[in-house]
């Protein structure tokens, strides 16, 4: 087993266990912290795939900004008392069984698909994930979506302020 494989399996196990802990934790603050662990594991996968720009953006935007926003809202609501109303056991079981059935069907589909049977996600070749290549494309072909996203941010900001205002 090479070092890349060991890192891959470690990061995969970390991501799945942390994602499960997001569900299992009773305290919402713990859920946020476990979700940050998931984001770190996914950023590790991006680095492994040589997508360095996305790895650092994932850390800055998701783990840095969005999760802090979640933490602020949780602390604003004072939810860290463990008084969350629970669904009854049958509803939980039904949710878990339906999600497990979906996972089983999709995994069996993937295992049967012959088109992707011998395809490999290359780890060592290519430098398309570096910021130089992505920036050239972003400011040439994708310039209009880039500018539209700034308008989207402005409208989201105004909308959040208007919604969050009292009355």
């Amino acid at each position, binding site marked *: 087993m090479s070092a*890349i494989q060991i890192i*891959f399996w470690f990061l*995969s196990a970390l991501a*799945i266990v942390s*994602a*499960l802990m*997001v*569900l299992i934790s009773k305290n919402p603050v713990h859920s946020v912290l476990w*979700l940050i662990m*998931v984001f770190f594991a*996914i950023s590790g*996968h*991006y680095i492994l*795939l*040589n*997508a360095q720009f996305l790895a650092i*953006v*994932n850390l800055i*935007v*998701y783990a840095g900004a*969005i999760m802090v*926003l*979640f933490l602020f*809202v949780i602390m604003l609501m004072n*939810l860290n008392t463990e008084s969350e*109303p*629970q*669904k009854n056991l049958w*509803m*939980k079981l039904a*949710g878990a069984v339906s*999600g*497990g059935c*979906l*996972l089983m069907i999709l995994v069996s589909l993937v*295992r049967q698909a012959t088109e*992707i*049977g011998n*395809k*490999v*996600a*290359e*780890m060592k*070749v*290519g430098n*398309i*994930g570096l910021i130089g290549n*992505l920036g050239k*494309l*972003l400011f040439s072909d994708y310039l209009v*979506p880039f500018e539209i*996203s700034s308008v*989207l*941010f402005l*409208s*989201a900001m105004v*909308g*959040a302020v208007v*919604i*969050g205002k009292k009355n």
Partner: protein
Amino acid sequence: MPIQYYIILSLALFCIGIVGVLVRRNVIIVFMCIELMLNAVNLLLVAFSKMHHGVAYLSDKLTTTGTDAQLFVFFIMVVAAAEVSVGLAIIVMMYRNTHSVDVNFLNRLKN
């Protein structure tokens, strides 16, 4: 790594997100599970971009196949950030009106 491993990892994360949306009643946890699903899709997009780049690299060493997928991931992150800001504002407003984060309170909307 074989692309199947990445597909199965992403599917596992996505299904964990679905189970979270179905099982939990705290609306913030439901929202976090939606973020988890978005990240699973992002990981799959990056893996597929490297897969196609690896195929194109064999014939042309200077190919830029696959940069589009990584920019898609970038735009998904942009939209997710905007979505989170508006969604959390809605949750705060809902909490101010009902003093609860239980999603079952939201069925008052139908009256």
